[in-house]
């Protein structure tokens, strides 16, 4: 795939596939959806602009995503006994940017995320922003940013990537 081949349907399908990987615990496949320089960012306030100088719940590069994914599968991860599950309910994605010349693509996807862990259910609404580029023959995430409605509120433990 080249940037010029990317269609709106490809972009929307990428977002659905990305959420499905998380819901089905296919974390290695999920991590491979990121470009090498890709980040996952979950700010702790609305309208955050600076992941280094403002508090975030998560700001993970490839190394930290790998550590987190490994821990979730570790037999000594106490909080994953029993193993938790998560579910993404996605609203239709909106393509915000489709610029093959610059190899830049961007989508906005409102969602309701539900996590089940140790018998407790956590439900969090929010908006996911996917910034993509074509890398190594496929669409890859440069940034997945998740803005929770409750970003600056006290939150219970949330263990999976939203």
């Amino acid at each position: 795939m080249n940037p010029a081949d990317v269609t709106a349907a490809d972009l929307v399908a990428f977002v659905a596939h990305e959420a499905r990987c998380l819901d089905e615990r296919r974390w290695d496949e999920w991590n491979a959806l990121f470009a090498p320089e890709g980040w996952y960012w979950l700010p702790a306030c609305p309208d955050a602009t600076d992941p280094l100088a403002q508090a975030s719940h998560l700001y993970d590069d490839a190394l930290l995503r790998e550590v987190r994914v490994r821990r979730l599968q570790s037999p000594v991860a106490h909080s994953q006994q029993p193993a938790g599950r998560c579910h993404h309910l996605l609203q239709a994605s909106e393509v915000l940017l489709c610029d093959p010349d610059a190899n830049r693509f961007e989508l906005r996807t409102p969602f309701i995320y539900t996590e089940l862990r140790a018998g407790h259910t956590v439900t969090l609404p929010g908006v996911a922003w996917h910034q993509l580029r074509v890398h190594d023959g496929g669409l890859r995430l440069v940034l997945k940013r998740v803005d929770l409605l409750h970003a600056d509120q006290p939150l219970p433990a949330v263990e999976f990537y939203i």
Partner: protein
Amino acid sequence: MNPQDAAALVQPYQVHRDIYLSPEVFRLEQDRLWAGSWLFVGHDSQVPQPGDYTTMTLAGQPVMMIRREAGSGPGAIAVLLNRCAHKGAPLSTAPAGHADRYLRCPYHGWTYRLDGRLAGLPVKAGYEGSDFDHGPAQHGLTPYGEVAVHRGFVFARARRGGPAFAECMGELLQALDLLCDRSPQGRLQVAGGVLRTEFAANWKIYLENVNDAFHPITTHVSASQSAGDVWQAQAQDGPPPLAMKQLLPFASGYDFFAQMGARVLPHGHSVLGTWASLHTAYADLGGYGEALRAAHGAERAAAALAFAPQNVVFYPSMALKGAPQVMRVLRPLAVDRTVLEAWAFQPVGAPPELLHSALLYNRQVFSPMSMVAHDDLHLFEGIQRSLAARGNPWVSLHRGAVGGDDERPPRDVSGIDEVLLRNQYRAWAEGMLAVGEEVV
């Protein structure tokens, strides 16, 4: 339940589960221990201008921390109950805000000076002939209690009596001075925002854990092993990135934590150990070390940089780290519900990388999405449920016993001694029994 019965739940080497489980103990604890303690309220950098305020709950009370008119001297910060003298409406429901010369109640427009005195009320003529001038409303907003400020850190105590601020805090104030001297200007600034976690367990389970260097090797094995494995697999030259440097020490063994040492202090306070210093990488960043030496002298600068405690506990409400500069504040909501806040500081005049490091630490270790905190929170919530099991009602705190008066603070101890926890509960029992004037 009376205070004597509550205090009897603490024995020299064990505590009864009711201190974590009983709603009655929780209510008494808020009224006596919390109201009678110097609680962390906020930092003066949150309210730089007259009229700036923050709101929070302290010892169960709705509270407002506000900066008074310029020239108010040592009383520049007021801590007031956030309750209109008229009908009880909160003056503000925002976490932070600004009042221009006067606080104005949104309900009927009563106004107050920035120190809480009643300034005016609409249709004042309507009060003539009533006994308003003899009622409590004429005094305006009720102060929370006594207020003390040290290097910008604001503390308040609702119940009068007991040791004055400086006497109560003792050696902790020197620790605070060292932390503030990480800034060439000697000032810390709250920055970046606060992370909040709500969990279903008693606040004391969390505060014990702050002083429990015995748990990382078993509790955090999944996080430290995963970090270690991933880093090894990278097989890169050069030192690990800061994110890894912050995670890898959780794999350290009992010897490491024992040797990092601790000091128990009166009134439940303590200083726990030092990390292999994270700050060294910053020592000469952007001329930082040089600026620090120029400002404080070589000796003081070296002392400030070398002081990197794991946790300085300001019992019962707050704990600070030295490097990175982060602070945890406990907000008990109910006997089985607590909010933890993780704050970050920028040392004024120091490179922004120090704030970045603090925020990185908070999200890696204290965020509700932290892979380190997950195992802690899971265990705390499990403890809250399983402590109620039939049979043994006691929690054991026997490790590192020396017995009798030798247990008394101040004392230097091993980093893994449960004397750090026994010291908290000695203060807890004293706080439950303390005689002081009723809460104002």
